[in-house]
């Protein structure tokens, strides 16, 4: 490979080209200036479409053939069905059957249910993935087995890449819990109801060909139309597009782990003492067990002090919906719904609003919601002593997670990472993270069961917490504590081969992931 490498603004070596396309190394937060105009899809004419508005075709295979599927195309899907998606695997099964090769899969995220995709990478149907490579797909990629280089983007970065023309979607396949023959679609009704379809918005707007796949066809009009039929080429009916119990996995349970509850409690106490929980504030917590408990502690603090939040950002679930219905939160601005209570609330409550990566996260827009949020609770696999954090690889070097909305949320006013100090002997706080996904300047507070570290850049918070009884420590102290317990781990061993690139929210490359050396 005669690729040259240059050091980017966070000190990582970035190749000049990835998958044959030139890349821009990360320049620093807000430093890269985009130029030119957004990309635009071809002008269509309704004269080419059935005048009665019935765009149905016999099956997914016919739709893909009519859409002109060819070698080397980019095919997109969305991940609102999470681990219950049946559509993406079916798309590539058909492509493989048609003998199509070297496709790029452009999902908004992947899940363990997409393990069959490995087979289509091995048989040459898929060249590489641009999206996320979770679990088995990540392991496959980390072993250097994917033909091309994976590209990881945040939810907002995905929208940015599509609108800026960095990624051209040839065919978008949009699984829709309910749709009409014109292509209007939503996620709030039907047996595969998933709440909203915001992750498919860019795909509908910018792809050359758009196929809507549904197992709940209703007569025109499908209301609400979260996806507008005016963008849609073909509508396909399938018996089943998702596995309902895996789409909305029942209500995620609040963690029972005393250690995680303790971290959640410390986080909530910190927010209260620092004065972050105040009338009209806003927050976003994830859907994991620890985050759920933080939400519950927030609710207690709000009730006790008679405080209302102006809005909460979803992922929504029962607990957030309860807060909305109790009046503790005035609006939920939701990016994805995690359980049936979330779906019901979004369908029935006008204060539970669906959003898309365009409104919430897109860095190349005239503002986005992420910066308005007061408190955001995020996770990380590793954090370094300069507060840089990793969410995609583990300390052993394997790529196992996607970025999700994580990078986008870093623009919130107070970014808090509640994490255990170590996991199964692996310290979470390191001298250097294996992969940098977010620069430390955007990460404010690390909460562990053994202490809370405040980024020295946040002099205001340090000042506010003076005299607090909470265990405030430096990040260096936390690292030493972890190492005293676990020992100092050896860094992961890699070959020279780049197997994935991690994009920053502005389309520049913040880091790359290399192939794991398995003999090490």
């Amino acid at each position, binding site marked *: 490979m005669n690729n040259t490498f240059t050091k980017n603004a966070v000190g990582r070596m970035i190749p000049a080209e990835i998958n044959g396309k030139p890349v821009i190394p990360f320049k620093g937060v807000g430093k890269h200036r985009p130029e030119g105009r957004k990309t635009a899809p071809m002008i269509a004419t309704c004269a080419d479409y059935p005048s009665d508005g019935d765009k149905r075709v016999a099956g997914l295979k016919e739709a893909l053939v009519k859409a002109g599927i060819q070698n080397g195309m980019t095919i997109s899907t969305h991940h609102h069905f999470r681990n219950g998606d049946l559509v993406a695997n079916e798309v590539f099964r058909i492509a493989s059957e048609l003998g199509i090769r070297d496709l790029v899969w452009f999902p908004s995220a992947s899940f363990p249910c997409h393990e069959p995709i490995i087979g289509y990478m091995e048989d040459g149907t898929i060249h590489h993935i641009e999206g996320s490579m979770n679990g088995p797909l990540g392991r496959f990629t980390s072993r250097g087995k994917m033909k091309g280089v994976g590209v990881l983007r945040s939810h907002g970065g995905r929208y940015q890449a599509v609108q800026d023309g960095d990624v051209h979607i040839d065919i978008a396949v949009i699984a829709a819990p309910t749709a009409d023959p014109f292509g209007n679609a939503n996620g709030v009704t039907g047996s595969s109801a998933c709440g909203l379809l915001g992750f498919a918005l860019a795909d509908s707007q910018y792809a050359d060909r758009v196929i809507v796949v549904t197992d709940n066809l209703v007569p025109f009009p499908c209301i609400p139309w979260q996806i507008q039929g005016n963008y849609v080429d073909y509508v396909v009916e399938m018996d089943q597009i998702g596995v309902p119990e895996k789409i909305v996995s029942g209500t995620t349970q609040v963690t029972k782990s005393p250690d995680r509850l303790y971290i959640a409690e410390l986080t909530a106490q910190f927010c209260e003492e620092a004065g972050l929980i105040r009338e009209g504030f806003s927050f976003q917590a994830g859907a994991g067990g620890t985050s759920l408990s933080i939400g519950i502690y927030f609710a207690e603090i709000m009730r006790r002090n008679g405080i209302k939040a102006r809005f909460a950002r979803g992922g929504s679930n029962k607990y957030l919906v309860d807060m909305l219905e109790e009046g503790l939160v005035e609006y939920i601005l939701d990016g994805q719904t995690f359980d049936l209570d979330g779906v019901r609330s979004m369908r029935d409550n006008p204060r539970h609003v669906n959003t898309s990566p365009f409104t919430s996260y897109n860095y190349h827009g005239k503002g986005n919601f992420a910066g308005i949020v007061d408190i955001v609770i995020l996770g990380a696999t590793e954090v370094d002593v300069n507060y840089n954090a990793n969410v995609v690889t583990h300390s052993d070097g394997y790529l196992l997670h996607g970025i999700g909305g994580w990078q986008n949320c870093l623009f919130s006013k107070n970014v808090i990472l509640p994490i255990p100090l170590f*996991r199964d*002997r692996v310290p979470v706080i390191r001298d250097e993270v294996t992969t940098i996904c977010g620069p430390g300047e955007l990460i404010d507070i690390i909460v562990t069961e053994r202490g809370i570290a405040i980024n020295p850049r946040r002099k205001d918070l340090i000042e506010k917490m003076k005299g607090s009884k909470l265990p405030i420590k430096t990040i260096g102290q936390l690292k030493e504590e972890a190492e005293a317990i676990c020992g100092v781990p050896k860094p992961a061993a890699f070959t020279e081969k780049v197997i994935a690139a991690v994009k920053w929210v502005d389309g520049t490359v913040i880091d790359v992931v290399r192939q794991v050396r398995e003999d090490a």
Partner: protein
Amino acid sequence: MKKTAAAGNRGTGVRSDCYVTLELKKSGGLEIRLESKVKPLFGDSIIDLCREVLTFFGIEHATVDIEDMGALPYMIAARLEAAVRRLIDTDRRFMMEVIPQNRYETKKDRYRRSRLYLPGNTPKLALNAGIHQPDGIILDLEDSVAPDKKFEAAIMVRNALCRIDFYGAERMVRINQLPAGLDDLEEVIPCHVNLILLPKCESADQVVQVDDQIQAVKNAHKQEYPVYIMPIIESALGVLRAFEIASASPNVVALAIGLEDYTADLGCPRTREGRESFFARSMLVNAARAAGIQAIDSVFSDVSDMEALKNTVLESKSLGFDGMGCIHPRQIRVIHEAFAPGQAELSKALKIVAAFREAEEKGLGVVSLGSKMIDPPVVKRALRIVDMAEKMGIEIQDAEKQS
């Protein structure tokens, strides 16, 4: 002679532990095979540690298979030592240094409101126990350890005492019933343990045996820190002999009651109301107070019902108990709060203490509050309440405002 032995835990759900299989050989040197999710990060150091342990026991030829689930070094060393000692007869112990944070002594009359039980052979539960700030932690070798795991559990507990930072909690071990418990003492006493719980105690003689053995082990290791004893009364006979047990040694600092075994001994079910154990609990409090030591109540076993736990603790406090056992970290705070002095109690105590200090300053022999004389025991109780409130960080100004 046996040539292979194993120790440790494996299977789904096992974390922070390892399973070690050791086979002694006649030749071929040491072969150590490691399967571990942290192998890229810690593989070399794990293998080095195993070599060190084997060499310490004079083993030159062996194969070792380690299935590691993220065990810390002291856990791996404990498992390997257990396997070694199952195969060779040795007096040697692979002792790890007691971390400086654990070299503290506790006081006879320190608070013992909560003491958290930790199964001795499940290392992952002990690891973070201290962060929940119980007054004491109990590494249990008795009921929570299966009979065939007792041997390796004692070694695990010994290493945990040396290496885990419990952040100031009183470090206790519940040994097995005598006579097996005497062997446990040999293992754990050299690790700066603070207190030994003696289960199913029925006589003063058992306390004396434990006390003597503790002293003998301390002498052998030239150690002088205090090791206290808390006998657990768990039978009808034990209840009747509570006072002689409580006063059997100056090292006995508290009597605890175990109600599961006690009610079984009575032949009646343990109820939530607890009428069946009222006599025993009162007897225990009386015996403890007569001997000038603390009385500690049984555990509350429904870990999901915090309201019922709170009521139980309040009842316990009203009977005169000083503390209670916990089987889950979430119970600790409820117990501490319920044992804490109430606002009215605290403001009264503050007034008495203020009067006492004033009398002291003026050199008066008699403390009086308004027109009332205050007896010395009332002063003593008030001092204790104020002290506890200070240690628990209860806002005393608030209490004054209320009065």
